[in-house]
């Protein structure tokens, strides 16, 4: 039964078209990266590895991206839940609020953030009188990166929550589970795949973000310079070193994803 279905499918010409298209996509995604690695000037590697720019930026990038993802989870999960539980019109409106920052050029996001939290902006001024500085430091970087990456997390999680079988929550409630227990033992485990996808998306977006960070928070080695900013700055004079930095950033990301793979992307069954 199954075998005939498979073989008849493999005979259809459409299958080759699909395979060819998929292969093109894989090449399109990997060739530029291989090119980057191919251009690597290995003599530079040792020098870059020992540079303080790399160490400072890598550590800051990790802290900032983890901070941004943590904030996304903390504030994004309740929003995702709310969106998934609203009537269609409210849901559409809330989704729009989440999508707009995604389509804004990151530089514009940075300007927008400045208009709220900048030193001369209303909220920023209040915070400054309270002695709280939210720009030109790590906090500013986290704010900028969260603004850009949180929507990815919210949309992914919201999609998961919306597709969750709500009757499972009903069943838990009839078994005496409080709303909190239902959330903890049904809603969240049931959206685990979506939450993991959201985490990965948000983190990927966070680690690569530079437009909003540069505009909102600035670029200063050791204080606000994340990896993408370090790469951009290095690129001004030293393409080889910038190339090495890019490959190192890529390598660090792959390493982290591989380490988390079992936990993050394993079959959620």
């Amino acid at each position, binding site marked *: 039964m199954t075998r005939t279905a498979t073989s008849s499918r493999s005979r259809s010409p459409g299958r080759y078209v699909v395979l060819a298209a998929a292969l093109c996509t894989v090449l399109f995604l990997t060739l530029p990266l291989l090119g980057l690695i191919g251009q690597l000037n290995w003599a530079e590697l040792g020098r870059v590895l020992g540079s303080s720019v790399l160490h400072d930026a890598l550590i800051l990038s990790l802290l900032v991206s983890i901070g941004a993802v943590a904030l996304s989870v903390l504030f994004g999960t309740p929003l995702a839940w709310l969106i998934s539980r609203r009537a269609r019109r409210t849901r559409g409106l809330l989704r729009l609020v989440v999508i707009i920052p995604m389509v804004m050029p990151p530089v514009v996001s940075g300007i927008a953030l400045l208009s709220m939290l900048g030193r001369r902006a209303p909220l920023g001024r209040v915070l400054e009188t309270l002695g709280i500085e939210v720009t030109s430091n790590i906090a500013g970087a986290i704010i900028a990166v969260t603004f850009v990456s949180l929507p990815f997390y919210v949309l992914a999680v919201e999609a998961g929550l919306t597709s969750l079988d709500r*009757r*499972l929550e*009903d069943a*838990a*409630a*009839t*078994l*005496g589970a409080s709303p909190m227990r239902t959330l903890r033992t049904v809603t969240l485990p049931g959206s685990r795949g979506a939450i993991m996808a959201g985490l990965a998306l948000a983190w990927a977006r966070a680690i690569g973000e530079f437009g909003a960070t540069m505009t909102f928070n600035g670029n200063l080695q050791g204080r606000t310079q994340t990896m993408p900013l370090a790469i951009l700055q290095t690129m001004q004079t030293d393409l080889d070193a910038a190339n090495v930095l890019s490959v190192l950033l890529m390598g660090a990301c792959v390493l982290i994803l591989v380490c988390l793979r079992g936990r993050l992307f394993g079959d959620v069954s």
Partner: protein
Amino acid sequence: MSAGLHARLRAPMGEGRLDVELSVAGGQTAVLLGPNGAGKSTLVRALAGLVDIDEGRIVLDGREVTHAPPQERHVAVQFQSNLLLPWLSVLENVAYGRRSRGEPASDARESARRWLERLDVADLAGRSPKTLSGGQARRVSLARALAAGGDLLILDEPTTSLDIDARVDARRVIAEVIREVAAPRLIVTHDPVEALSFADELYIMEAGRVVQSGDPASIRARPRSEYAASLVGVNLIKGHLGRQGDRWKVDTPGEPLWVADVDLPPGTAVLARIHPRSIILSSEPLRTSARNVLAGRIASIAIDQDRARILLATTPGLTVEVTTNAIASLGLEQGLEVWASFKATDIEVYPR
């Protein structure tokens, strides 16, 4: 009000409304029987607190729970689609109710294990619900509802997803275990056989309302609607009582039915019930003592093992039950003109 369930529910339901009153005493089993779309699911959800009712009251064991959230109602439900939590083991699913009520994990698991044993599925404890067969999942979800306990147990279509053999087996198991439940039991089904085998009290629902309720014997004896009649498998004919000389009859839109003496005034709107087995079928008009003889063609023949149910296009229409041997010896087939004869004394007449 005494212990048990006393409910009057009114709620919107699809395009119509649910409007139901029911009472079930502790230790009693009420069965709600009705076709798809009759409002059974809405009723279950309303009792469990998953949909709010806009009018009425629900009193459970003396507590008013009309608008209480589901987790405070103590209504255990075995859902039609089981709704086991796929990320928990079978044992944890069954222990879920007690753990939700704050029982220590070990106690809850212990009780869960006992219920799984009681339902002969203790060996499934460590399995994931996704690996269970349909029948196993039914048992586990039943165990989960039973383990949770509560003031009302609801089983929603407990055997309909099973194949025939498993169904018989499941009915026996359910009949056994629910006897141990002291709370009122409510079984929802569209299967008349299941309904009649479980019910202490039977509620027949159509279009959001209970059209007839009572113990199974009385419903079998006097169905009040065509649906109820078809459920218990009898002919039910609507008409008005009439007299011709000293003979009683029921006037129908077609031929009148001659009936035995009735203690009702002529003109009363009545229902006439005739059991399909008391009708004699012949391929030509017979001279017998039967006072009713109706001619008509065979509309359809449905064979079930050694019996056949034949639908006649007489007016009023009749269902006749014969042996499969009779079909052969009389050469019965669809479209053949036949005569149906039955005695006046085989017709039960009662007011509508």
